[in-house]
Protein backbone atom coordinates (compact mmCIF):
# COMPACT_ATOMS: atom_id res chain seq x y z
CA UNK A 1 0.00 0.00 0.00
CA UNK A 2 1.15 3.50 -0.86
CA UNK A 3 2.25 5.86 1.87
CA UNK A 4 0.44 8.81 0.26
CA UNK A 5 -2.74 10.22 1.80
CA UNK A 6 -4.63 10.10 -1.52
CA UNK A 7 -5.28 6.63 -2.92
CA UNK A 8 -4.75 5.79 -6.57
CA UNK A 9 -7.80 4.96 -8.62
CA UNK A 10 -10.93 6.52 -10.10
CA UNK A 11 -13.30 8.86 -8.26
CA UNK A 12 -17.07 9.02 -8.63
CA UNK A 13 -17.20 12.82 -8.83
CA UNK A 14 -18.63 14.58 -11.89
CA UNK A 15 -16.04 15.94 -14.34
CA UNK A 16 -14.87 19.35 -13.13
CA UNK A 17 -16.13 18.87 -9.56
CA UNK A 18 -14.44 20.97 -6.87
CA UNK A 19 -14.28 18.02 -4.48
CA UNK A 20 -11.51 16.35 -6.49
CA UNK A 21 -9.27 19.40 -6.00
CA UNK A 22 -10.31 19.78 -2.36
CA UNK A 23 -9.47 16.10 -1.71
CA UNK A 24 -6.08 16.53 -3.36
CA UNK A 25 -5.30 19.68 -1.37
CA UNK A 26 -6.26 18.12 1.98
CA UNK A 27 -4.19 15.03 1.21
CA UNK A 28 -1.18 17.09 0.11
CA UNK A 29 -1.31 18.99 3.40
CA UNK A 30 -1.51 15.75 5.40
CA UNK A 31 1.45 14.35 3.47
CA UNK A 32 3.37 17.61 3.83
CA UNK A 33 2.89 17.64 7.58
CA UNK A 34 3.79 13.94 7.78
CA UNK A 35 0.70 13.06 9.84
CA UNK A 36 -1.07 10.49 7.61
CA UNK A 37 -0.54 7.67 10.09
CA UNK A 38 -2.09 9.61 12.95
CA UNK A 39 -4.94 11.25 11.06
CA UNK A 40 -8.60 10.34 11.47
CA UNK A 41 -10.99 11.87 8.96
CA UNK A 42 -14.76 12.13 9.27
CA UNK A 43 -16.63 11.93 5.97
CA UNK A 44 -20.04 13.59 5.55
CA UNK A 45 -23.31 12.62 3.92
CA UNK A 46 -23.53 14.26 0.51
CA UNK A 47 -21.31 14.20 -2.57
CA UNK A 48 -18.20 13.48 -0.46
CA UNK A 49 -19.82 10.49 1.28
CA UNK A 50 -17.39 8.12 -0.43
CA UNK A 51 -14.29 10.02 0.71
CA UNK A 52 -13.16 6.95 2.64
CA UNK A 53 -12.68 5.18 -0.69
CA UNK A 54 -10.16 7.84 -1.74
CA UNK A 55 -8.27 8.60 1.48
CA UNK A 56 -5.44 6.39 2.63
CA UNK A 57 -5.80 7.05 6.35
CA UNK A 58 -8.41 6.07 8.95
CA UNK A 59 -11.81 7.45 7.96
CA UNK A 60 -15.29 7.07 9.40
CA UNK A 61 -18.67 8.02 8.10
CA UNK A 62 -21.01 10.10 10.24
CA UNK A 63 -24.77 10.58 10.07
CA UNK A 64 -25.82 13.64 8.04
CA UNK A 65 -24.52 16.80 9.71
CA UNK A 66 -23.05 15.08 12.78
CA UNK A 67 -19.36 14.99 11.78
CA UNK A 68 -18.33 17.59 14.42
CA UNK A 69 -19.95 15.57 17.25
CA UNK A 70 -18.18 12.41 16.08
CA UNK A 71 -14.91 14.34 15.76
CA UNK A 72 -15.32 15.85 19.23
CA UNK A 73 -15.36 12.43 20.89
CA UNK A 74 -12.46 11.07 18.83
CA UNK A 75 -10.24 14.06 19.59
CA UNK A 76 -11.08 14.11 23.30
CA UNK A 77 -10.08 10.44 23.55
CA UNK A 78 -7.08 10.71 21.21
CA UNK A 79 -5.72 14.24 21.72
CA UNK A 80 -2.42 13.51 19.94
CA UNK A 81 -4.11 12.47 16.69
CA UNK A 82 -5.03 14.84 13.86
CA UNK A 83 -8.82 14.87 13.54
CA UNK A 84 -10.71 16.69 10.80
CA UNK A 85 -14.21 16.80 9.38
CA UNK A 86 -14.86 17.24 5.67
CA UNK A 87 -18.35 18.60 5.08
CA UNK A 88 -20.43 20.08 2.30
CA UNK A 89 -22.90 22.94 2.58
CA UNK A 90 -25.94 20.71 3.11
CA UNK A 91 -24.19 18.66 5.77
CA UNK A 92 -22.61 21.56 7.66
CA UNK A 93 -24.76 24.62 6.91
CA UNK A 94 -28.26 23.04 6.98
CA UNK A 95 -28.80 19.85 8.95
CA UNK A 96 -25.56 20.17 10.94
CA UNK A 97 -25.59 23.80 12.09
CA UNK A 98 -26.15 22.86 15.72
CA UNK A 99 -23.18 20.48 15.83
CA UNK A 100 -20.73 22.78 14.01
CA UNK A 101 -21.60 25.81 16.14
CA UNK A 102 -21.37 23.99 19.47
CA UNK A 103 -18.23 22.10 18.51
CA UNK A 104 -16.56 25.34 17.41
CA UNK A 105 -17.79 27.17 20.49
CA UNK A 106 -16.48 24.48 22.82
CA UNK A 107 -13.16 25.17 21.16
CA UNK A 108 -12.64 21.52 20.24
CA UNK A 109 -9.13 21.12 18.90
CA UNK A 110 -10.17 19.83 15.48
CA UNK A 111 -10.16 21.15 11.91
CA UNK A 112 -13.18 21.46 9.65
CA UNK A 113 -12.87 21.57 5.88
CA UNK A 114 -16.11 23.12 4.64
CA UNK A 115 -16.67 22.74 0.91
CA UNK A 116 -19.24 25.30 -0.21
CA UNK A 117 -20.50 24.79 -3.75
CA UNK A 118 -23.88 26.35 -3.11
CA UNK A 119 -26.06 23.38 -3.98
CA UNK A 120 -27.05 19.82 -2.99
CA UNK A 121 -25.24 17.80 -5.63
CA UNK A 122 -25.79 14.19 -4.51
CA UNK A 123 -29.57 14.46 -4.40
CA UNK A 124 -29.96 16.31 -7.69
CA UNK A 125 -29.24 20.03 -7.32
CA UNK A 126 -31.62 21.36 -4.68
CA UNK A 127 -31.45 24.66 -2.77
CA UNK A 128 -28.70 24.77 -0.16
CA UNK A 129 -28.44 27.29 2.69
CA UNK A 130 -25.51 28.80 0.76
CA UNK A 131 -27.33 29.05 -2.60
CA UNK A 132 -27.14 32.59 -4.00
CA UNK A 133 -30.23 34.81 -4.17
CA UNK A 134 -31.89 34.36 -7.54
CA UNK A 135 -30.03 31.09 -8.23
CA UNK A 136 -32.13 28.45 -9.94
CA UNK A 137 -32.09 24.96 -8.38
CA UNK A 138 -34.32 21.87 -8.48
CA UNK A 139 -36.38 23.31 -5.62
CA UNK A 140 -36.14 26.99 -6.62
CA UNK A 141 -37.01 26.80 -10.31
CA UNK A 142 -37.70 30.55 -10.43
CA UNK A 143 -34.56 31.35 -8.49
CA UNK A 144 -33.93 31.66 -4.74
CA UNK A 145 -36.50 34.07 -3.34
CA UNK A 146 -35.83 35.71 0.01
CA UNK A 147 -39.49 35.68 0.99
CA UNK A 148 -39.82 31.97 0.30
CA UNK A 149 -36.30 30.63 0.83
CA UNK A 150 -34.51 33.07 3.12
CA UNK A 151 -30.96 34.42 2.79
CA UNK A 152 -27.69 32.66 1.92
CA UNK A 153 -25.79 31.71 5.08
CA UNK A 154 -22.25 32.98 5.64
CA UNK A 155 -20.72 30.19 7.65
CA UNK A 156 -17.11 31.42 7.91
CA UNK A 157 -18.25 34.80 9.30
CA UNK A 158 -20.57 33.05 11.76
CA UNK A 159 -17.89 30.66 13.01
CA UNK A 160 -15.29 33.45 13.28
CA UNK A 161 -17.60 35.26 15.74
CA UNK A 162 -17.42 32.40 18.25
CA UNK A 163 -14.88 32.87 21.04
CA UNK A 164 -13.92 29.17 20.92
CA UNK A 165 -12.45 29.39 17.41
CA UNK A 166 -8.81 30.21 16.56
CA UNK A 167 -8.43 30.17 12.78
CA UNK A 168 -11.08 30.77 10.11
CA UNK A 169 -10.38 31.45 6.45
CA UNK A 170 -12.42 31.42 3.24
CA UNK A 171 -10.65 30.46 0.03
CA UNK A 172 -11.74 29.67 -3.51
CA UNK A 173 -10.24 27.10 -5.84
CA UNK A 174 -11.41 28.54 -9.18
CA UNK A 175 -7.98 30.09 -10.01
CA UNK A 176 -4.35 29.01 -9.74
CA UNK A 177 -3.69 31.67 -7.10
CA UNK A 178 -6.79 30.51 -5.23
CA UNK A 179 -5.61 26.90 -5.19
CA UNK A 180 -2.22 27.97 -3.84
CA UNK A 181 -3.90 30.06 -1.12
CA UNK A 182 -6.25 27.15 -0.25
CA UNK A 183 -3.26 24.85 0.27
CA UNK A 184 -1.69 27.40 2.60
CA UNK A 185 -4.95 27.95 4.50
CA UNK A 186 -5.44 24.21 5.03
CA UNK A 187 -1.83 23.83 6.17
CA UNK A 188 -2.29 26.65 8.68
CA UNK A 189 -5.58 25.20 9.94
CA UNK A 190 -4.04 21.77 10.53
CA UNK A 191 -1.01 23.41 12.17
CA UNK A 192 -3.29 25.33 14.55
CA UNK A 193 -4.73 21.98 15.64
CA UNK A 194 -1.32 20.31 15.91
CA UNK A 195 -0.10 23.18 18.08
CA UNK A 196 -3.10 22.57 20.35
CA UNK A 197 -4.53 26.04 19.76
CA UNK A 198 -8.14 25.01 19.14
CA UNK A 199 -10.81 24.96 16.50
CA UNK A 200 -9.97 25.85 12.90
CA UNK A 201 -12.16 26.00 9.80
CA UNK A 202 -11.40 26.55 6.13
CA UNK A 203 -14.35 27.30 3.87
CA UNK A 204 -13.52 26.33 0.30
CA UNK A 205 -15.73 27.97 -2.31
CA UNK A 206 -15.92 25.25 -4.96
CA UNK A 207 -17.52 24.78 -8.34
CA UNK A 208 -20.38 22.38 -9.01
CA UNK A 209 -20.31 22.32 -12.83
CA UNK A 210 -23.23 19.88 -12.93
CA UNK A 211 -25.80 21.94 -11.04
CA UNK A 212 -24.13 25.32 -10.67
CA UNK A 213 -24.26 26.51 -14.26
CA UNK A 214 -24.97 25.54 -17.86
CA UNK A 215 -21.29 25.20 -18.77
CA UNK A 216 -17.94 24.84 -17.03
CA UNK A 217 -16.94 28.33 -18.20
CA UNK A 218 -20.14 29.82 -16.85
CA UNK A 219 -19.63 28.00 -13.54
CA UNK A 220 -16.12 29.42 -13.13
CA UNK A 221 -17.20 32.90 -14.28
CA UNK A 222 -20.01 32.85 -11.69
CA UNK A 223 -17.54 32.18 -8.89
CA UNK A 224 -15.36 35.10 -10.01
CA UNK A 225 -18.13 37.60 -10.80
CA UNK A 226 -20.85 36.72 -8.28
CA UNK A 227 -20.06 34.24 -5.59
CA UNK A 228 -16.84 35.60 -4.13
CA UNK A 229 -18.39 39.07 -4.17
CA UNK A 230 -21.01 37.75 -1.74
CA UNK A 231 -18.64 35.34 0.05
CA UNK A 232 -15.45 37.43 0.32
CA UNK A 233 -12.18 35.54 0.49
CA UNK A 234 -9.56 35.95 3.19
CA UNK A 235 -8.65 35.24 6.80
CA UNK A 236 -11.60 36.00 9.07
CA UNK A 237 -9.84 35.07 12.26
CA UNK A 238 -6.28 34.24 13.21
CA UNK A 239 -5.61 34.25 16.92
CA UNK A 240 -1.93 33.68 17.48
CA UNK A 241 -0.78 32.57 20.90
Amino acid at each position, binding site marked *: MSDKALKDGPMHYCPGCGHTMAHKLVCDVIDGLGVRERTIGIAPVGCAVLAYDYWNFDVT*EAPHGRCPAVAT*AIKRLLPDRVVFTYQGDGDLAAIGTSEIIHTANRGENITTVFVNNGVYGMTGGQLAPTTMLGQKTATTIKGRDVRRDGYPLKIAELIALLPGTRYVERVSIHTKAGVERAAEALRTAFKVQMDGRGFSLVEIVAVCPTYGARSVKEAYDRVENEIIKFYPLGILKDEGL
Partner: protein
Amino acid sequence: MTPAKKILITGNEACGEGAVTAGCGFYAGYPITPQNELTAYMSKRMDECGRVFIQSESELAAINMVLGASLTGERAMTTSSSPGISLMQEGISYLAGCQLPAVIVNVMRGGPGLGNIAASQADYFQATKGGGHGDYNMVILAPAGVQEMFECTYEAFDIAERYRNPVMILSDGIIGQMMEPIEVRYPQKSVDPDKSPWALRGCKGRESRSIRSLFLKEGALEEWNRDLQRKFRTMEAKEVRYETYKTGGARLIFVAYGTSARICRAVVDKLRQEGVKAGLFRPVSLWPFPYKKLKGLDKGTTVFFDVEMSAGQMLYDVRLAVADDSRVLFHGRMGGGVPEEADIINIAKKAVKRK
Protein backbone atom coordinates in the same frame (compact mmCIF):
# COMPACT_ATOMS: atom_id res chain seq x y z
CA MET B 1 -15.21 -11.29 42.89
CA THR B 2 -13.92 -8.59 45.16
CA PRO B 3 -15.32 -8.28 48.70
CA ALA B 4 -18.84 -6.85 48.66
CA LYS B 5 -19.29 -3.22 49.58
CA LYS B 6 -22.81 -2.15 50.56
CA ILE B 7 -24.00 1.33 49.54
CA LEU B 8 -27.33 3.20 49.53
CA ILE B 9 -27.81 4.72 46.11
CA THR B 10 -30.47 5.66 43.50
CA GLY B 11 -31.07 3.49 40.46
CA ASN B 12 -29.73 6.21 38.18
CA GLU B 13 -26.53 6.49 40.21
CA ALA B 14 -26.18 2.70 40.34
CA CYS B 15 -26.38 2.65 36.57
CA GLY B 16 -23.60 5.24 36.39
CA GLU B 17 -21.44 3.35 38.87
CA GLY B 18 -22.02 0.14 36.91
CA ALA B 19 -20.69 1.90 33.82
CA VAL B 20 -17.68 3.34 35.64
CA THR B 21 -16.85 -0.10 37.10
CA ALA B 22 -17.21 -1.67 33.64
CA GLY B 23 -14.49 0.66 32.36
CA CYS B 24 -16.66 3.15 30.47
CA GLY B 25 -14.16 5.66 29.08
CA PHE B 26 -16.56 8.12 27.50
CA TYR B 27 -19.93 9.52 28.48
CA ALA B 28 -22.06 12.12 26.72
CA GLY B 29 -25.50 13.19 27.87
CA TYR B 30 -28.11 15.92 27.72
CA PRO B 31 -30.37 16.89 30.64
CA ILE B 32 -33.82 15.29 30.73
CA THR B 33 -36.00 14.16 33.64
CA PRO B 34 -36.21 11.52 35.14
CA GLN B 35 -32.56 10.59 34.45
CA ASN B 36 -30.79 13.81 35.48
CA GLU B 37 -29.10 12.22 38.52
CA LEU B 38 -27.30 9.92 36.10
CA THR B 39 -25.76 12.68 33.98
CA ALA B 40 -24.80 14.61 37.12
CA TYR B 41 -23.27 11.48 38.66
CA MET B 42 -21.25 10.78 35.52
CA SER B 43 -19.99 14.38 35.35
CA LYS B 44 -18.46 13.87 38.79
CA ARG B 45 -17.26 10.28 38.52
CA MET B 46 -15.78 10.49 35.02
CA ASP B 47 -13.71 13.52 36.11
CA GLU B 48 -12.57 11.66 39.24
CA CYS B 49 -11.46 8.72 37.09
CA GLY B 50 -9.71 10.88 34.49
CA ARG B 51 -12.15 9.82 31.78
CA VAL B 52 -14.14 11.90 29.30
CA PHE B 53 -17.50 13.50 30.15
CA ILE B 54 -19.30 15.86 27.78
CA GLN B 55 -22.65 17.56 28.33
CA SER B 56 -23.73 17.69 24.71
CA GLU B 57 -25.87 20.32 22.99
CA SER B 58 -28.58 17.76 22.20
CA GLU B 59 -29.35 14.06 22.33
CA LEU B 60 -28.46 13.98 18.64
CA ALA B 61 -24.97 15.20 19.43
CA ALA B 62 -24.73 12.84 22.43
CA ILE B 63 -25.40 9.67 20.45
CA ASN B 64 -23.03 10.78 17.68
CA MET B 65 -20.31 11.56 20.23
CA VAL B 66 -20.84 8.03 21.50
CA LEU B 67 -20.43 6.80 17.92
CA GLY B 68 -17.15 8.70 17.63
CA ALA B 69 -15.91 7.42 20.99
CA SER B 70 -16.88 3.85 20.18
CA LEU B 71 -15.00 3.80 16.89
CA THR B 72 -11.77 4.57 18.75
CA GLY B 73 -12.31 1.31 20.69
CA GLU B 74 -13.27 2.99 23.99
CA ARG B 75 -16.27 1.87 26.01
CA ALA B 76 -18.92 4.57 25.55
CA MET B 77 -22.34 5.33 27.00
CA THR B 78 -25.16 7.83 26.77
CA THR B 79 -28.31 8.03 28.83
CA SER B 80 -31.63 9.78 28.36
CA SER B 81 -35.37 9.44 28.75
CA SER B 82 -38.06 8.69 26.18
CA PRO B 83 -38.19 11.89 24.03
CA GLY B 84 -34.40 12.06 24.00
CA ILE B 85 -34.15 8.40 23.04
CA SER B 86 -36.49 9.09 20.10
CA LEU B 87 -34.00 11.72 18.90
CA MET B 88 -31.17 9.19 19.14
CA GLN B 89 -32.77 6.58 16.90
CA GLU B 90 -30.84 7.60 13.76
CA GLY B 91 -27.55 7.28 15.64
CA ILE B 92 -28.53 3.91 17.13
CA SER B 93 -29.28 2.63 13.63
CA TYR B 94 -25.85 3.87 12.48
CA LEU B 95 -24.15 2.15 15.45
CA ALA B 96 -25.83 -1.13 14.48
CA GLY B 97 -25.12 -0.57 10.77
CA CYS B 98 -21.45 0.27 11.40
CA GLN B 99 -21.12 -2.61 13.91
CA LEU B 100 -20.06 -0.38 16.79
CA PRO B 101 -20.59 -1.26 20.47
CA ALA B 102 -22.24 1.25 22.79
CA VAL B 103 -24.50 1.31 25.84
CA ILE B 104 -27.65 3.42 25.71
CA VAL B 105 -29.84 3.85 28.78
CA ASN B 106 -33.51 4.82 28.56
CA VAL B 107 -35.06 5.83 31.89
CA MET B 108 -38.58 5.81 30.46
CA ARG B 109 -41.19 8.50 31.10
CA GLY B 110 -44.78 8.98 29.96
CA GLY B 111 -45.54 9.73 26.33
CA PRO B 112 -46.33 10.19 23.49
CA GLY B 113 -44.90 13.62 22.74
CA LEU B 114 -43.57 15.54 25.69
CA GLY B 115 -45.87 13.40 27.87
CA ASN B 116 -44.93 13.81 31.49
CA ILE B 117 -42.03 12.98 33.79
CA ALA B 118 -43.65 10.02 35.56
CA ALA B 119 -42.37 6.48 35.08
CA SER B 120 -43.65 4.57 32.07
CA GLN B 121 -42.95 1.44 30.03
CA ALA B 122 -44.35 2.68 26.75
CA ASP B 123 -41.06 2.55 24.79
CA TYR B 124 -41.02 -1.26 24.62
CA PHE B 125 -41.93 -1.34 20.93
CA GLN B 126 -39.35 1.33 20.10
CA ALA B 127 -36.63 -0.53 21.97
CA THR B 128 -37.33 -4.15 21.05
CA LYS B 129 -38.73 -3.80 17.54
CA GLY B 130 -36.09 -1.37 16.24
CA GLY B 131 -36.87 2.33 16.75
CA GLY B 132 -34.42 3.35 14.05
CA HIS B 133 -34.46 2.49 10.37
CA GLY B 134 -33.28 -0.75 8.80
CA ASP B 135 -33.07 -4.39 9.87
CA TYR B 136 -31.31 -4.46 13.21
CA ASN B 137 -31.75 -5.70 16.73
CA MET B 138 -30.02 -5.00 19.98
CA VAL B 139 -29.99 -6.70 23.35
CA ILE B 140 -32.43 -4.88 25.65
CA LEU B 141 -31.98 -5.42 29.39
CA ALA B 142 -34.72 -4.44 31.86
CA PRO B 143 -33.54 -4.02 35.44
CA ALA B 144 -36.18 -4.39 38.17
CA GLY B 145 -34.24 -2.73 40.98
CA VAL B 146 -31.25 -0.66 41.92
CA GLN B 147 -28.91 -3.68 42.23
CA GLU B 148 -29.86 -4.70 38.71
CA MET B 149 -29.36 -1.16 37.40
CA PHE B 150 -25.73 -1.65 38.39
CA GLU B 151 -25.44 -5.24 37.18
CA CYS B 152 -27.25 -4.86 33.86
CA THR B 153 -25.16 -1.79 32.97
CA TYR B 154 -21.94 -3.51 34.04
CA GLU B 155 -22.75 -6.49 31.85
CA ALA B 156 -24.12 -4.44 28.94
CA PHE B 157 -20.61 -3.24 27.99
CA ASP B 158 -19.38 -6.83 27.62
CA ILE B 159 -22.41 -7.82 25.54
CA ALA B 160 -22.00 -4.74 23.31
CA GLU B 161 -18.34 -5.56 22.70
CA ARG B 162 -18.94 -9.29 22.20
CA TYR B 163 -21.21 -8.56 19.24
CA ARG B 164 -19.99 -5.08 18.23
CA ASN B 165 -23.57 -3.89 18.57
CA PRO B 166 -25.38 -1.34 20.76
CA VAL B 167 -27.08 -2.59 23.92
CA MET B 168 -29.94 -0.75 25.62
CA ILE B 169 -30.87 -0.63 29.29
CA LEU B 170 -34.64 -0.12 29.42
CA SER B 171 -35.45 1.26 32.82
CA ASP B 172 -38.10 3.66 34.08
CA GLY B 173 -38.43 6.73 36.27
CA ILE B 174 -39.29 4.74 39.39
CA ILE B 175 -36.35 2.35 39.16
CA GLY B 176 -34.11 5.28 38.22
CA GLN B 177 -35.04 7.53 41.11
CA MET B 178 -35.69 5.15 44.00
CA MET B 179 -32.95 4.35 46.51
CA GLU B 180 -32.02 0.85 47.64
CA PRO B 181 -28.97 -0.62 49.29
CA ILE B 182 -26.84 -2.48 46.77
CA GLU B 183 -23.80 -4.71 46.99
CA VAL B 184 -20.93 -3.64 44.79
CA ARG B 185 -18.93 -6.83 44.39
CA TYR B 186 -17.64 -6.60 40.86
CA PRO B 187 -14.05 -5.97 39.83
CA GLN B 188 -13.09 -2.72 38.13
CA LYS B 189 -12.57 -3.45 34.44
CA SER B 190 -10.21 -1.70 32.10
CA VAL B 191 -10.04 -1.97 28.35
CA ASP B 192 -7.09 -1.40 26.05
CA PRO B 193 -8.49 0.27 22.92
CA ASP B 194 -5.08 -0.05 21.23
CA LYS B 195 -5.71 -3.79 21.03
CA SER B 196 -9.04 -3.37 19.31
CA PRO B 197 -8.66 -5.01 15.86
CA TRP B 198 -11.19 -2.77 14.13
CA ALA B 199 -10.94 0.63 15.82
CA LEU B 200 -9.79 3.82 14.09
CA ARG B 201 -6.81 5.24 15.99
CA GLY B 202 -4.55 6.21 13.09
CA CYS B 203 -3.03 3.72 10.63
CA LYS B 204 0.56 3.60 11.92
CA GLY B 205 1.98 0.13 11.28
CA ARG B 206 -1.01 -1.15 9.36
CA GLU B 207 -3.20 -0.39 6.34
CA SER B 208 -5.74 2.40 6.66
CA ARG B 209 -9.31 1.37 7.37
CA SER B 210 -12.77 2.88 7.43
CA ILE B 211 -15.97 2.47 9.39
CA ARG B 212 -19.13 2.71 7.34
CA SER B 213 -22.69 1.55 6.88
CA LEU B 214 -22.95 2.66 3.23
CA PHE B 215 -22.75 -0.12 0.62
CA LEU B 216 -23.79 1.02 -2.84
CA LYS B 217 -22.45 -1.86 -4.94
CA GLU B 218 -25.22 -4.20 -6.02
CA GLY B 219 -25.71 -6.96 -3.49
CA ALA B 220 -23.16 -5.59 -1.03
CA LEU B 221 -25.69 -4.23 1.46
CA GLU B 222 -27.69 -7.44 1.38
CA GLU B 223 -24.52 -9.39 2.12
CA TRP B 224 -23.70 -7.00 5.00
CA ASN B 225 -27.25 -7.52 6.28
CA ARG B 226 -26.84 -11.29 6.12
CA ASP B 227 -23.77 -10.97 8.34
CA LEU B 228 -25.73 -8.78 10.75
CA GLN B 229 -28.63 -11.25 10.84
CA ARG B 230 -26.27 -14.15 11.62
CA LYS B 231 -25.02 -12.08 14.55
CA PHE B 232 -28.57 -11.32 15.73
CA ARG B 233 -29.49 -15.03 15.59
CA THR B 234 -26.48 -15.82 17.80
CA MET B 235 -27.59 -13.11 20.21
CA GLU B 236 -31.09 -14.64 20.25
CA ALA B 237 -29.65 -18.02 21.13
CA LYS B 238 -27.17 -16.88 23.78
CA GLU B 239 -28.44 -13.73 25.47
CA VAL B 240 -31.84 -14.76 26.86
CA ARG B 241 -32.28 -13.70 30.49
CA TYR B 242 -35.29 -14.10 32.78
CA GLU B 243 -36.37 -14.81 36.33
CA THR B 244 -39.22 -16.98 37.59
CA TYR B 245 -40.96 -16.59 40.95
CA LYS B 246 -43.27 -19.30 42.31
CA THR B 247 -44.18 -20.51 38.83
CA GLY B 248 -44.07 -24.18 39.88
CA GLY B 249 -47.67 -25.45 39.79
CA ALA B 250 -49.00 -21.96 39.12
CA ARG B 251 -52.38 -21.69 37.36
CA LEU B 252 -51.93 -18.01 36.75
CA ILE B 253 -48.57 -16.59 35.73
CA PHE B 254 -47.89 -12.88 35.63
CA VAL B 255 -45.55 -11.67 32.92
CA ALA B 256 -43.99 -8.32 33.76
CA TYR B 257 -40.66 -6.49 33.73
CA GLY B 258 -39.12 -3.57 35.61
CA THR B 259 -41.41 -1.70 38.03
CA SER B 260 -44.46 -3.72 36.94
CA ALA B 261 -42.63 -6.93 37.86
CA ARG B 262 -42.00 -5.64 41.38
CA ILE B 263 -45.69 -4.90 41.79
CA CYS B 264 -46.66 -8.31 40.42
CA ARG B 265 -44.23 -10.06 42.75
CA ALA B 266 -46.10 -8.54 45.72
CA VAL B 267 -49.39 -9.52 44.09
CA VAL B 268 -48.25 -13.14 43.73
CA ASP B 269 -47.60 -13.34 47.47
CA LYS B 270 -51.00 -11.86 48.31
CA LEU B 271 -52.85 -14.14 45.88
CA ARG B 272 -51.02 -17.18 47.26
CA GLN B 273 -52.18 -16.21 50.77
CA GLU B 274 -55.72 -16.30 49.40
CA GLY B 275 -55.19 -19.71 47.87
CA VAL B 276 -54.69 -18.62 44.27
CA LYS B 277 -51.75 -20.47 42.71
CA ALA B 278 -50.04 -17.47 41.14
CA GLY B 279 -46.48 -17.00 39.89
CA LEU B 280 -44.34 -14.46 38.08
CA PHE B 281 -42.27 -14.73 34.92
CA ARG B 282 -39.97 -11.75 34.58
CA PRO B 283 -38.09 -11.28 31.30
CA VAL B 284 -34.78 -9.52 31.98
CA SER B 285 -33.78 -9.52 28.31
CA LEU B 286 -36.71 -7.96 26.46
CA TRP B 287 -34.80 -8.66 23.27
CA PRO B 288 -34.13 -11.49 22.86
CA PHE B 289 -37.50 -12.20 24.45
CA PRO B 290 -37.56 -15.53 26.37
CA TYR B 291 -40.30 -17.05 24.16
CA LYS B 292 -39.33 -20.68 24.74
CA LYS B 293 -38.97 -20.32 28.50
CA LEU B 294 -42.40 -18.72 28.78
CA LYS B 295 -43.95 -21.33 26.51
CA GLY B 296 -42.38 -23.99 28.69
CA LEU B 297 -44.46 -22.77 31.65
CA ASP B 298 -47.70 -23.32 29.74
CA LYS B 299 -49.57 -26.35 31.10
CA GLY B 300 -52.34 -25.98 28.53
CA THR B 301 -54.76 -24.27 30.88
CA THR B 302 -52.34 -21.80 32.45
CA VAL B 303 -53.54 -18.21 32.46
CA PHE B 304 -50.91 -15.62 31.56
CA PHE B 305 -51.40 -12.11 32.90
CA ASP B 306 -49.29 -9.41 31.25
CA VAL B 307 -48.93 -6.23 33.35
CA GLU B 308 -47.24 -3.14 31.96
CA MET B 309 -47.15 0.62 32.34
CA SER B 310 -48.29 0.94 28.72
CA ALA B 311 -51.26 0.16 26.49
CA GLY B 312 -49.93 -3.38 26.07
CA GLN B 313 -46.68 -3.67 24.15
CA MET B 314 -44.83 -6.68 25.60
CA LEU B 315 -48.30 -8.25 25.43
CA TYR B 316 -47.64 -9.04 21.76
CA ASP B 317 -44.56 -11.06 22.66
CA VAL B 318 -46.44 -12.87 25.43
CA ARG B 319 -49.17 -13.78 22.92
CA LEU B 320 -46.52 -14.95 20.47
CA ALA B 321 -45.00 -17.14 23.16
CA VAL B 322 -48.15 -18.91 24.31
CA ALA B 323 -50.08 -18.50 21.04
CA ASP B 324 -53.42 -18.52 22.78
CA ASP B 325 -55.11 -15.17 23.23
CA SER B 326 -57.95 -16.51 25.39
CA ARG B 327 -55.54 -17.33 28.21
CA VAL B 328 -53.47 -14.16 28.06
CA LEU B 329 -54.79 -11.37 30.24
CA PHE B 330 -53.60 -7.82 30.14
CA HIS B 331 -53.72 -4.86 32.46
CA GLY B 332 -51.81 -1.69 31.75
CA ARG B 333 -51.64 1.96 32.71
CA MET B 334 -50.58 4.71 30.33
CA GLY B 335 -49.12 8.20 30.37
CA GLY B 336 -47.34 7.81 33.68
CA GLY B 337 -49.96 5.69 35.48
CA VAL B 338 -48.71 2.80 37.60
CA PRO B 339 -50.62 -0.52 37.89
CA GLU B 340 -52.31 -0.88 41.29
CA GLU B 341 -52.32 -4.13 43.22
CA ALA B 342 -56.09 -4.10 43.85
CA ASP B 343 -56.93 -3.76 40.16
CA ILE B 344 -54.58 -6.56 39.20
CA ILE B 345 -55.98 -8.83 41.93
CA ASN B 346 -59.56 -8.22 40.78
CA ILE B 347 -58.82 -9.13 37.18
CA ALA B 348 -56.76 -12.15 38.22
CA LYS B 349 -59.48 -13.51 40.52
CA LYS B 350 -62.20 -13.08 37.92
CA ALA B 351 -60.15 -14.92 35.33
CA VAL B 352 -59.30 -17.82 37.63
CA LYS B 353 -62.94 -18.14 38.73
CA ARG B 354 -64.05 -18.39 35.10
CA LYS B 355 -61.71 -21.27 34.39
